[in-house]
């Protein structure tokens, strides 16, 4: 009589399973990166940034002016930046991706130059007493940043950047009394609308 063989195959050594798991996660990460450009752009974060801008629009009130108006919008920009960064980090973690993987770095490098220019021009225009030009300039340069950064991202991101540039153009030539509403419509409305679309289509 032949010796009985167990029906179940023996489990492979634990080290081999561990190594296989690591390789699988690496394969998943690379496939996701290749398939989606930059996926950590967070729609939920966009919604959060939009809500911050709507709150700033209410708090700032009135036409562009030094003092409270400027302080409210600059503070909201800082809060929105933190919300956006944390949301992107959270989304990247959820998909087991590194935030600054190759597409992530490209996104950040595309985003940074127009934002640095915006910060410098804000200081220069404030010193020159041309605060009235800030809303149009902010919206245009943020739109340019999102468009250039979004060139390496899912298609909806550069589309959002282009919309910001359209609103920015309007703000640049509109009467100063419209500026606050256009800022809220741009940084608030566009972030919320596109954020919801990104969250629905691109996993959060």
């Amino acid at each position, binding site marked *: 009589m032949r010796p009985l063989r167990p029906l179940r195959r023996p489990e492979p050594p*634990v*080290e081999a399973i561990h190594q296989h798991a690591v390789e699988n996660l690496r394969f998943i990460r690379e496939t996701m990166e290749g398939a989606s450009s930059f996926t950590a752009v967070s729609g939920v974060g966009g919604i959060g940034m939009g809500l911050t801008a709507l709150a700033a629009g209410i708090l700032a009130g009135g036409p562009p002016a030094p003092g409270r108006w400027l302080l409210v919008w600059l503070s909201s920009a800082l809060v929105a930046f933190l919300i956006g960064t944390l949301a992107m980090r959270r989304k990247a973690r959820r998909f087991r991706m590194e935030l600054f993987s190759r597409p992530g770095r490209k996104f950040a490098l595309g985003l940074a130059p127009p934002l640095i220019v915006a910060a410098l021009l804000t200081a220069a225009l404030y010193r020159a007493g041309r605060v009235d030009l800030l809303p149009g300039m902010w919206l245009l340069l943020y739109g340019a940043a999102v468009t250039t950064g979004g060139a390496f991202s899912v298609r909806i991101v550069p589309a959002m950047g282009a919309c910001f540039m359209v609103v920015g153009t309007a703000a640049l030539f509109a009467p100063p009394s419209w500026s606050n509403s256009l800022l809220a419509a741009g940084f608030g409305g566009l972030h919320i609308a596109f954020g919801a679309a990104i969250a629905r289509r691109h996993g959060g």
Partner: protein
Amino acid sequence: MAKQSTTLRAVAARRAEPQEVPSGPMPAARLDRLIHERIRLGIVSALAVNDSLTFNELKALLQTTDGNLSVHARKLEEAGYLACTKSFDGRIPKTRYRLTPAGRRAFERYLAHMEALIEAMRER
């Protein structure tokens, strides 16, 4: 025929119902074998970060043949993990895939399994 297809899909969807992820170390035997295969894992990973992808986009991304991709995508579709729509772009047929909620849950379970395996090894 349509009824039979619906029945098959219903069975597949039931089979893909989410299961509780057990805590603690997870043996390899408990892995979702359907997703574990390399091409199928690639399909699901790519669709997890895209609303949908066409057959040709998946083929280019995974660098595989028509036949191979077709067989694996069919298996995922039968399990209720993928939804497939066929249309025409002019006279050229176009097949588009997207991940179903069951497929997304299965993918997230699989990721959790992988992480649990790595974590268990770290604790040893």
